């Protein structure tokens, strides 16, 4: 292979096509087939953030499974701490908003208007195949309840987040709520950009983005105040999952993309000051401190804390930290998050999200149950081992999805794009 690479490097210098000089093409084809189609590396630290988001979601679901589904004897304090780290999902939303926003901003800048058709084609081929495969497999292989049969169409049309995902037995893939939310966002966001560019000034555009961001909070507040009888489950179903109450994280990502696109150099200069960096860090830390302690202001305040936390605090926190990481303000954290390993994990992140819960329920928590209940293994050993195992198994499964499903469809997408 080293020889082949060397040949390829030399050949262009002779003005020859690289495809001519592939004397041993078969190993290269195989290697290409099995290698990862790595994510864009423009912002390497964002890969590390994606890894943190994946890890937080995996640990959250392990604890949920141990505490409520299995259930296993897990310490109340530990489980509360673990479940308070619920905000990994919101990081995905902010990053999605940022990346989609950045793509559309570049598109607007180059073509004048958003290339809507191309955008939808790219999103569909990126997200649909693996999702539909996993959903169909689960629907076929698992014994479904009547409610799951009835609601399956919701999942196939990406409306899972309106199907009360928290109620057991309602949906085949309740964790698909976030994918549904993102798809709904993808559907709307090109039109948002078309609207955005109807305005001429940055101030007007930022006002629109800010208005939509705060709008989600207002919707949550109004719904919460007008439904004082809602319990925890109802609050999740009507405030946490729906797109109209949760769009603020995605809008924060759009805002981030816009700000970064328009004022990258001044922001980078501003962040050269340690005081500026500290201001952003402290803002983010204040948010995370509040997020980690939903009961800080008592049981009576838990509802309003959730209203504030589910989108507003998370998006402020991620906005601040992402802005730092995008502009070199993250210091040693930035260096750590930019390690190449995270790029590989981040590439498999979508697949990990799709498969981790079935693996958790079918394999990891069962093994954990045997270890704890039959062999007396202590939970401080079993819980971290379960998180690491689930992450590893999910990465393996996700790799399979990536190679056999995602990559082929991405190739097809590229060809279709070429034709269009």
């Amino acid at each position, binding site marked *: 292979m080293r020889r082949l690479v060397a040949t390829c490097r030399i050949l262009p210098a002779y003005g020859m096509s690289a495809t001519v000089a592939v004397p041993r093409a078969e190993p290269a084809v195989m290697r290409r087939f099995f290698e990862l189609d790595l994510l864009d590396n423009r912002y390497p630290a964002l890969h590390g953030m994606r890894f943190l988001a994946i890890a937080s979601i995996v640990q959250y679901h392990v604890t949920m499974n141990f505490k409520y589904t299995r259930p296993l004897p897990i310490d109340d304090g530990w489980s509360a701490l673990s479940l308070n780290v619920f905000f990994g999902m919101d990081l995905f939303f902010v990053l999605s908003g940022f990346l989609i926003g950045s793509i559309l901003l570049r598109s607007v800048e180059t073509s004048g208007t958003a290339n809507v058709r191309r955008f939808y084609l790219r999103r569909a081929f990126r997200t649909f195949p693996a999702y539909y495969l996993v959903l169909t497999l689960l629907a076929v292989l698992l014994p479904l309840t009547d409610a799951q049969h009835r609601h399956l169409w919701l999942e196939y049309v990406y409306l899972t987040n309106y199907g009360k995902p928290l109620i057991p037995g309602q949906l085949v893939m309740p964790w698909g709520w976030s994918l549904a939310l993102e798809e709904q966002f993808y559907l709307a966001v090109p039109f948002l950009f078309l609207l955005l560019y109807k305005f001429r000034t940055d101030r007007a555009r930022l006002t629109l983005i800010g208005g939509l961001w705060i709008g989600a909070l207002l919707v949550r507040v109004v719904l919460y105040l007008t439904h004082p009888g809602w319990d925890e489950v109802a609050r999740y179903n009507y405030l946490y999952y729906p797109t109209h109450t949760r769009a603020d994280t995605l809008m924060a990502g759009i805002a981030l993309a816009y700000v970064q696109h328009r*004022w990258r150099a*001044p*922001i980078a*200069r*501003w962040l*050269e*000051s*340690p*005081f*500026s960096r*500290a*201001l952003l*860090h*402290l803002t983010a*830390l*204040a948010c995370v*401190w*509040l997020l980690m302690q939903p009961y*800080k*202001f*008592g049981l009576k*305040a838990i509802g309003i804390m959730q209203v504030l936390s589910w989108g507003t605090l998370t998006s402020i926190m991620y906005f601040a930290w992402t802005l730092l990481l995008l502009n070199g303000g993250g*210091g*040693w954290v930035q260096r750590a998050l930019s390690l190449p390993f995270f790029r590989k994990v981040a590439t498999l992140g979508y697949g990990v999200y799709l498969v981790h819960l079935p693996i958790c329920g079918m394999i990891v928590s069962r093994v954990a149950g045997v270890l704890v209940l039959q062999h007396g293994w202590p939970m401080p050993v079993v819980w971290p081992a379960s998180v690491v195992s689930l992450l590893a198994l999910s990465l393996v499964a996700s790799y399979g999805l990536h190679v056999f499903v995602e990559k082929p469809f991405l190739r097809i997408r590229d060809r279709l794009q070429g034709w269009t």
Partner: protein
Amino acid sequence: MTASVSGWRDRLRGDVGFRLAIAFAVLVHVPALFAPFIIDDFAQREMTQGLYAPGDRGPFALYDFIDDSNRAALLERGVFPWWTHPHLVVRFLRPLSSFSLYLDYRIAPRLAWWGHLHSLLWWAAATLLVYAILESSFTRRIARIGSIVFALAQCHVIPLLWIANREAIISTATGAAGLLLYLRWRRERRARDAIATFAAFCLAMAAGEYSLCFSGYVVAFEVLRRRESFLARASGLAPFVVPAAAYLGLRSALQYGARGGGMYFDPFWNFGAFLADAPRRFSVLMCAAWAGVDDEMLLAQRWWVVMGVAVAAAALLTVVVAQTFRSVEEPVRREASWLLGGSVLAVVPVLAVHTSARLLGAAMIGVSAVVAVVLDRAWFPERAQPRRGMAELTATLALGLAFIHFVRAPIAGLAETQFRSGIGDAIERRMAWVRERAAGRSAIVVLRAEAFATALFAPCMLDDVTLPWRVLSYEAGRVLVVRSGDRSLELIASPRPIFQMGADEVFRGMDGSLHAGDSVQLTGMKATVLQLDKDGMPKRARFDFDKNLSDPSILWLRETAAGFEEQSLPQRGQGEPIVP
């Protein structure tokens, strides 16, 4: 854009940012205005009305809670519970603070917000004086950062929402005034400054014994800052030492202090107990002041956990402070050094009291100064710092300090204000419920009390000084009530005792433990301890009453987390559990 970003930054660095930060600090403390009266407040209000034994006492003795002159009367009434130490003394020499409370209760005896507003003004004065102290020693920017740290500190939360604890803020404010004048006196050596310093420290001592904390600063100043002869430094200390010595002499002569309980370890009464618990208390207070560790949570841990946390916090702080001190100019280092030393020494006098962040007002002056120097160096370096190695570690630790003092402190403060106000409101509701049922009763007996305010000063909330209030058990777990006779009953508690004795217990320390067979006679009731648990705490006790227990004039109550409920007594020879 560049210009506007730069302008915003400059404004944040300047007046606007500082004013916004101070406004934020005011907002953080404003919810305390809505807190109700709490525990001691009711007693002190009664004192101003002449209802609290031994009757009319004048404006300067509102901190004389219990001593030989009124102990028996207070136990008879039930202001203190039956297991109170027979020689319990809790009286403090705080004439200025007492007078401030007296004025409040004379002007607006039923308006808690009035008292809170008064306390808030003292907090504002303390903040201004701290700013002045820091500005006299450092740049204006350091003074601003430091005064924001001080203004937001969690140590102000309880004194602001608990009117009776105002003496902590008054001591801090008047002591800060004394320290400011002391610095002027020592730097400029003018006699008039010495006199002013003397006067200010006299005022501070009149506020209360917390002012002794300022001894830490003046001693540290003389040891670390001044380079003069021993005699010159000793004479320099005079404007502080004379009022402090006078205060201590007067306090001793007039028998002020605390003894018999476990909440105060008065070093003048019981030096051994004071010394034995001092390392734990010191560690907890240091962790609370510097690292924002929750004092109550840490206090509940085993000693090695406390020491471990303290050592870890000290190690990290040493790194960041040493790195900062190494990089600042000599004058800044000198000023910061004595303030650092002073903040540590300032904790020593309050080691005599039940450990709480509320005691840290004076210590926070030095903490604020050092934190401000660290942050000033980290955030506004004269030249760009490398973002690698030790410099980056120091910057990260500085960020941690900023988080503790700018983020954690206000959030925790708001939460604590809300929590304690909620408890106060709940107690008021409970006692209102009792008042509705108290008319025509000959006694109220609480078989099991849950709240501290039920065991202490609760009768001061009843509006009837003649109605005896008997709390039989406090903070017990499950209590079994056994009707042993027509006029007697027994309480058997499990797994917790009927009440606690020892360290941190206000009514009785371990030096006056009750033993099996010991009894206490009150009018209408005799309590006898029957059995102790393995820790020496009472597990079983008998109560003999003068009246038949079925007498309808006795109101029998139990208190759980949900509040009071009427309790029906079992038949003779039978028992009934009270489950929390």
